[in-house]
């Protein structure tokens, strides 16, 4: 059996996934005209960035090692506190990232968290 025939279903699957990923990403940015949108929808879109970023963060920082955790044993959650403070006080993009990654690396180096 040729390589292509052997992997035919996977190749079809990958192409299908490409299609369903690319179309939602490309469609609006290519064809949406902002000036033709009703005002309520434009306001709605202005709330999308904060909502989607917070929604992604919520599932990232409250899960640690694959399980929901709302305690100090959750290093991702603990590290988020000083990071958010630094982001709020300094508005420094790279400073915040350095503090956040530093907290996680230090927490593990100290052996307090795994």
């Amino acid at each position: 059996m040729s390589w292509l025939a052997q992997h035919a279903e996977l190749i079809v699957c990958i192409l299908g996934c490409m299609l369903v990923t690319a179309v939602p990403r490309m469609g609006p940015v290519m064809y949406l005209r902002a000036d033709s949108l009703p005002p309520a929808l434009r306001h709605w879109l202005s709330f999308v960035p904060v909502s989607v970023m917070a929604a992604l963060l919520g599932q990232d920082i409250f899960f640690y090692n694959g399980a929901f955790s709302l305690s100090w044993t959750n290093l991702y959650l603990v590290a988020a506190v000083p990071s958010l403070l630094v982001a709020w006080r300094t508005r420094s993009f790279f400073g915040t990232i350095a503090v956040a990654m530093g907290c996680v690396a230090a927490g593990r180096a100290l052996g307090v968290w795994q």
Partner: protein
Amino acid sequence: MSCPAETGNDAQTASASLFWEGARRALPIVLGYVPVAFAFGVLAVKSHIPPSLAIAMSMLIFAGSGQFVLAGLWGAGAGALSVIVAVFVVNLRHLLMSAAIAPHLAPLPRWQRALFGFEMTDETFGVHITAFQHGWKLAATTLFTCNVTAQLSWIGGTALGAFFGGLITDVKPLGLDYALTAMFLALVVPQCSSRLHLLTGIFAAVLSLGFKMAGMGQWNVVAATIVAATAGTALFLRRARREGRDITSGGAA
């Protein structure tokens, strides 16, 4: 053309700084993508996906969570159609991001908007929309330097993981598993430009967590985004109406 050498140098300096701005914007994304893509390459090979097709996925799909869903389900023996449906759902949030960034990219020719859309991820969306909100004047060089660098690091990380998966077993000591979360922590704070935006963000985080724990599977992020943005807009419009403000111009920034 009175002084070609000098204007040439100026133009070169300007385009070089646009390039470096794009590279700077890509830096934290690259830090996060390489280890995650590496892990994806490892998982793909474990899921009976040949390295060449794992790399093809990173070139053609370029979606972190989507590719993990694909490899995971494929490894578990799922059929092509159910994998495609799952990947569609997990990437549906990009429809909303693409719509939100569309007005800022309107000056670009359509083929460039197509390329932008093809390479748009949570992370590239995050850095560019935040730059626009802070008055960044659109520069295609910066935009595409950032996005292409990000995707190249994703493809490179995938190749390393697929071919040399045994080499590195743990990126945890460096805190690299937190790089992308760290970036979103830095990006989400300037998003909270008003009390209403802050409340909307907290609501979205709680909802996405609640939906995930309620067993909504891959729908949680897109559903939380829609509900929270709708609630934020409703409150904004109600307040504007009460104060008799005109809502037809601009966004609720």
